[in-house]
């Protein structure tokens, strides 16, 4: 198993008192467990504030997890000291959503992509240049564009630079945090295809974080749905899209607009807003919005359990 995350938790102080004492906590990630195998993609789906981005950053230790364990290629990296963690960063990387804030506006594209090599003292200047050129070609950029600054590229091209930077050290695993959400539709396809080609070539594994279910369905092998810090449903792609069991997954799928006017279904949309992660509803967090909620759902927290082989659901109503 390439990545094995067990009971990952992260809380942030929401309000602090006069003396720095924490009054309220945001439970951004609340006991999340999953595994990703080599060459596979786990799609992590959820609405804003569900903690999906925090999961991605905590795995890379860009945010320190509050508890839980992260095993990467067999090693427990949860408490790795900074120096060893830095060495490990050659094997796990991240691509961000916003193609504008993810590149330093004062650095040339070539330097941005070569920087990881420089930091890790790989190769001399001439070799680095050669390697950078090769990576540029790999992600579909022209090596002659290496001297340009980020603002001289379009959004899609900037996302390619981000991917090139992540690829520079030859990682085995990439967290892709909403990598196409900020891009135009016609450009989204370019970047999705690129990510999938790279997986086919190099056997990369992805944690693909997105709110866009159609994109997740396209790129993922497995899908986990998060709601208010927890995974509520987790199974393989075909099953979750064909037969979603959790009422929230069902609601999410019903809400996604389908680009086909001939299937104008009579849909029942889930009501209400996503509650604040500071003050989560007792019992099942989804019960105030759930059309099927029972008295039990208001008091008792459902656990994520395997209802069918390789299909985990956290709902009292699923047999």
């Amino acid at each position, binding site marked *: 198993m390439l990545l094995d995350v067990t009971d990952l938790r992260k809380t942030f102080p929401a309000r602090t008192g006069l003396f720095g004492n924490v009054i309220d906590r945001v439970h951004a990630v609340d006991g999340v467990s999953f595994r990703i195998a080599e060459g596979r993609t786990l799609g992590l789906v959820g*609405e*804003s504030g569900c903690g999906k981005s925090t999961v991605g950053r905590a795995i890379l230790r860009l945010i320190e997890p509050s508890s839980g364990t992260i095993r990467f290629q067999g090693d427990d990296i949860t408490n790795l000291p900074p120096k060893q963690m830095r060495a490990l960063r050659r094997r796990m990387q991240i691509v961000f959503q916003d193609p504008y804030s993810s590149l330093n506006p004062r650095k040339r594209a070539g330097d941005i992509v070569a920087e990881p090599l420089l930091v890790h003292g790989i190769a001399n200047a001439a070799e680095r240049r050669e390697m950078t050129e090769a990576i540029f070609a790999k992600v579909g950029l022209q090596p002659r564009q290496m001297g340009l600054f980020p603002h001289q590229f*379009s*959004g*899609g*091209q900037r996302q390619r630079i981000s991917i090139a930077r992540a690829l520079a050290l030859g990682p085995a695993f990439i967290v892709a945090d909403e990598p196409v959400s900020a891009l*135009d*539709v*016609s*450009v*989204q*396809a*370019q970047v*999705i*295809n690129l990510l*999938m080609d790279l997986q086919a070539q190099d056997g990369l594994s992805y944690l693909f974080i997105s*709110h866009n*279910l*159609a*994109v997740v*369905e*396209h790129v993922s092998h497995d899908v986990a749905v998060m709601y208010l810090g927890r995974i509520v449903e987790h199974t393989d792609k075909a099953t979750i*899209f*064909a037969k979603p069991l959790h009422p929230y997954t069902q*609601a*999410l799928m*019903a*809400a*996604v*607009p*389908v*680009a*086909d*006017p*001939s299937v*104008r279904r009579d*849909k029942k*949309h*889930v*009501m209400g*807003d*996503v509650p604040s992660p500071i003050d989560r509803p007792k019992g099942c967090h989804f019960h105030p919005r759930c059309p099927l909620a029972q008295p039990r759902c208001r008091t008792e927290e459902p656990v994520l359990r395997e209802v069918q082989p390789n299909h985990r659901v956290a709902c009292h109503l699923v047999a």
Partner: protein
Amino acid sequence: MAPVLEVSGLSTVFHTRAGIVRAVQDVSFSVEAGETLAIVGESGCGKTMTALSLMRLIPSPPGEITAGSVKVAGTDLLKLDEPGMRKMRGSQIAMIFQEPMTALNPLLTVGRQIAEMVSLHENVSRRAANARAVEMLHHVRIPAPERRAREYPHQMSGGMRQRAMIAMALACRPKVLIADEPTTALDVTIQAQVLDLIGDLRKELGTAVVLITHDLGVVAETADRMIVMYAGRKVEEGTTKDLFADPSHPYLQGLLASIPKFGAGEGTRLREIPGIVPALNNLPKGCAFAPRCSAAVAKCQEAIPPLETKRPGHAAACWVT
């Protein structure tokens, strides 16, 4: 039925240091009461500039509406002076924006902002205006509207704020509502609620809706008719059903093929539209889409294709198809 909004030959330019940017070129369309027309396109295609031109909210200078007419129930907005236009905004034609947080004043309660809008256009007492504000909040299905009217924008969630924006926009029963990416900043479950709401209000009040979006899924689910814009021009127009079923322009064909679809099956590759959207101050001589178009022929490089009727109720600007 006569259209309530009739736009013809609308052209808007921006005078910038880098030259004249032709943001909107010769765009025409009309919308009937109770109808939803979607304007679809990617960033920089001119859809938002078209919306702002309809409201005459183009910052000028550097912007300038150079030609065309925008008729709302027969009145040409482009011929009005500024005070006359101000009377129209809100009462005849209203707009909601992508980010309701920045469109609402953070220092005034939501109820007060709606009431202000009402008393601006109608000669009513303060009490009546306040009552209307509560009624509108109720109308957009905000629970406990009396209490919510006394809240400030930051006390509301994103979806609630967008509802409040809609309440404000519709408070004076405008004939036309322009919605510029109204759900782009919202989560999918909230997006579905807000789209439902806009659809229902349109039916109840008979408002004509111009929906500006980049999301073809949103278009498919909400619009009766749609126009597709590329590089400032209208390249295709027709009923939503017809355009999705049988797009004529290679651009719309490409767009539809490039979005991932539910249940498309394992390992299918998305179709890419190669290249990037051209800069509006440096457009190619012929069809703006030609450099990215796989069907392009020599003529496409030479002249801009006119909008032609391909089938009844379906027009496209393409030399090839």
